[in-house]
């Protein structure tokens, strides 16, 4: 590999982003080329410096925190809270557990009532279609 070929791979080599075979070929070139080695050192200084930036948070504008808190207060007023409020879910579960039989009976009664109402509605509708007057 010559310098002209190697130089295209140096930014990738410095960040460890090349395939293994390409990495080995670049490494062989670097072993005998001080110029490209210097270039890689410079690029490695860039990648190392960039990695360190996460430990250096930038100072936001002084009013940003207040502005953000204010901007999120509006959607918070408009939106329903993310999930069920605290203690409501466990309390609801406890009530269901304690009144299982009553809930089952109420459900069965509602089902029977709905079925009866539907049957009546079908009967009345059937007579209307047939042209018969609906009398009690």
């Amino acid at each position, binding site marked *: 590999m010559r310098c002209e070929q190697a130089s295209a791979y140096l930014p*990738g080599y410095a*960040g460890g982003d090349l395939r293994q075979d390409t990495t080995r070929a670049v490494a062989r070139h670097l072993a005998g080329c001080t110029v490209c080695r210097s270039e890689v050192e410079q*690029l490695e200084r860039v990648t190392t*410096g*960039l990695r360190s930036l996460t430990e250096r948070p930038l*100072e*936001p504008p002084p009013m940003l*925190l207040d502005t953000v808190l204010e901007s999120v207060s509006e959607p918070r007023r408009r939106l329903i809270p993310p999930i069920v409020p605290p203690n409501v879910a466990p309390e609801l579960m406890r009530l269901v557990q304690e009144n299982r039989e009553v809930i089952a009976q109420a459900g069965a009664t509602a089902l029977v009532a709905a079925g009866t109402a539907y049957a009546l509605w079908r009967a009345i509708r059937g007579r209307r279609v047939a042209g018969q007057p609906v009398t009690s």
Partner: protein
Amino acid sequence: MYVPRELVEACQRGEPGAFDELVRLTHRTVYSMAYRLMGSADDAADVTQDVYVRVWRGLRTFRGDANAGTWLYRITANTAMTHLKRRGRAGILMDPRDVPEATVSDGSDAHADADALERALVKLSPAQRAAVVLKDVYGWTCEEIAKEMRTTEGAVKVRLFRARQRLADELASAGVVVPLAKRKRTPS
């Protein structure tokens, strides 16, 4: 970015003050990432505001076993990408003199590099900046960046390598490292 799981759960339960605490704890980190992606203090502030509105809306679907810090970084990157697309249409240029001060600085060589790099990042094109910031600063994979930028891994690598080269050149012209152009290149 470390975000305690208990704090996120408190936000999900709607506990008073929990969301404000989450904002206080994370807004510097979110702003820093937004600034590095946008290259402008005003845009970074806008992105930061939008991030927390999205975070609030996303709390409902956030899974407790996921890393909240990673989730917040993803929302920030995604919001910045949306703003960049909008700004791309407006064609606004950035000014590298507007780089905010770092909250931590000890005057060492490493910090001189970091300061120079923050200024140099602003001079990159938005696509190069996004690739190098997400990969080299925040440790994303090229695949993840390609998905976020809606492009191919190959395109990300091209932008990444050009960005690193350009940053090295910028450090050289800022006098942080010896300019390579002064050395005599010899083929081997």
